């Protein structure tokens, strides 16, 4: 079992089961992307989530990293061809938003 799965398994709330699955899929898709920025964003987001689950980072610190990454991701998305922008946005900004709004708050409650 991966460290990310270990972290997500700490969330027992059944109402977010779909969000957990979706988050894991997006992270894996991002890590497999050919674009270096998307790949790195997914790896970093995974690491931050694991660090929060290990109580190594506060929620404020996690939120800071996510909001900063969103600023950088907006630059990246804007630099992509129009047809590729939706996918790039999904794998960077939307994935980070999912983590910040649904995954991490519940993870912190579960700890």
């Amino acid at each position, binding site marked *: 079992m991966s460290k990310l799965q270990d972290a997500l398994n700490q969330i027992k709330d059944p109402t977010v089961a779909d969000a957990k699955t979706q988050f894991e899929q997006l992270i894996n898709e991002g890590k497999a992307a050919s674009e270096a920025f998307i790949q790195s964003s997914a790896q970093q987001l995974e690491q931050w989530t694991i660090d929060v689950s290990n109580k190594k980072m506060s929620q404020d610190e996690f939120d800071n*990293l996510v909001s900063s990454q969103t600023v950088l991701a907006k630059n990246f998305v804007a630099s992509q061809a129009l047809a590729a922008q939706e996918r790039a946005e999904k794998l960077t900004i939307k994935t980070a938003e999912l983590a910040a709004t649904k995954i991490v708050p519940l993870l912190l409650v579960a700890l």
Partner: protein
Amino acid sequence: MFKHPRLFPKQSSVAAFVIALLLCSCATISKPSSQVRVQQLKDAHLAFIDHYTCVEGTPATWDQASFDSEVAKITQQFTDAEAAESKTVPARKEFIKNSAKLFQRDAALVRKQHCLSSSFAANKKKQLQQNYDLLLQQTSN
């Protein structure tokens, strides 16, 4: 008849060599000023994160005046760098503006927590390296 090898080059050759050497050294040593400014912003931002990383999990003695002064100094650096960028490259200006926003977020977090966890600091430095290196690549092109 025995010929002595010429030990001393002509004056014109020496002059040409010196000029070539000076031109090469200028190209090697002096980076474009925009690149130097971005490098300075990167160094200042990373040093700020290092400065406010908790030592063994506990914050150092908090000095509000020193913190305010450091934030003001770095903020000014960002303002100057943005103003110095040519209007002909709006993307670079925008990038510096965004980097300034990132710095303000980090400063706000330090103001709130007084120190940053070592895990956050490591992740943040990685994020900043990526950001500034991208900008440095752009300025070198």
